C-alpha cells in the first residue's frame, strides 16, 4: 500500500519518532509503514490521518498487489 506519510511529516516538520509517539507505536513501525513493508490497521491509519488533519485516503493508496492478498 502506497502512502504519503513522509510528505505529510515534512509539511508538519515532524520526525518519525515524534509521529510514532503521537500514534502510540514504535519508530520502527512508522519506518516500516513508510517503506510500504507493513499494512497498518484501520485504527492506526485513522490516528495518523487525524494527526495530519487530513483524510485516510489522501494519505494511503491501494496498489494492484493489495487486491491479490
Amino acid at each position, binding site marked *: 500500500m502506497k502512502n504519503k506519510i513522509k510528505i505529510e511529516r515534512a509539511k508538519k516538520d515532524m520526525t518519525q*519518532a515524534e509521529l510514532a509517539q503521537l500514534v502510540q507505536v514504535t519508530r520502527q513501525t512508522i519506518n516500516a509503514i513508510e517503506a510500504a513493508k507493513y499494512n497498518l490497521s484501520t485504527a492506526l491509519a485513522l490516528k495518523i490521518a487525524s494527526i495530519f488533519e487530513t483524510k485516510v485516503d489522501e494519505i494511503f493508496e491501494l496498489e494492484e498487489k493489495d487486491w491479490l492478498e
Partner: protein
Amino acid sequence: MKSSYLLPYRFKCVGWIIFLPSLIMGLLFFIFNKELPIFDCKVLAISDLEAFGKHHFLTVIPNNIQDEIISILIIIGAFFISFSKEKSEDEYISKLRLESLIWATYINYFILVFSIIFLYEFSFYWILIFNMFTILIVFIIKFNWALWKFKKNTQNEE
C-alpha cells in the same frame, strides 16, 4: 494478538532466569541420566501405568521428581519469555508474534510427523519428551530473530 493476553514486560527477565539454568539441567539429565536421591519422594499419581505391569488410579507411589521439576521449570521459563510483552509493544510486534507462533507450530508438527515415520522405540520416546518444549523454544528463536531483523532493517530514520 491482543496485548491484554500477554504478561508484563518484567516477566521476560524472570523467564530467562528460570529457563536457562533449567534447560542446562535438563540437557545434563538427558546426557547422564542421573537421578539425585534428594528428589526421591512419594507422589500422588492420578494414573500410574507400569511398564508391562498393572494400571493404578489415584494412588501414592514412590518417585524421583527431578525430571518433573526440571520439565516444569523449562516450561514456565519458556512460557514467561514467549508471552511477555516487549518493552515497546505495538501492532507490528503483535503481527510478528502471531506469525512466529504459527511458524513454530508448523515446525513442531513437521518434526513430530518426521519422527513418527523415521524414529522408533526409545528414540521416539525421547522425541516426545523434547516435543513438550520445542514449540515454545522454536517460537522464542523465531520471534526474537524476526524482531532483530525488523529493528536492523528499520534502524535509520529516512
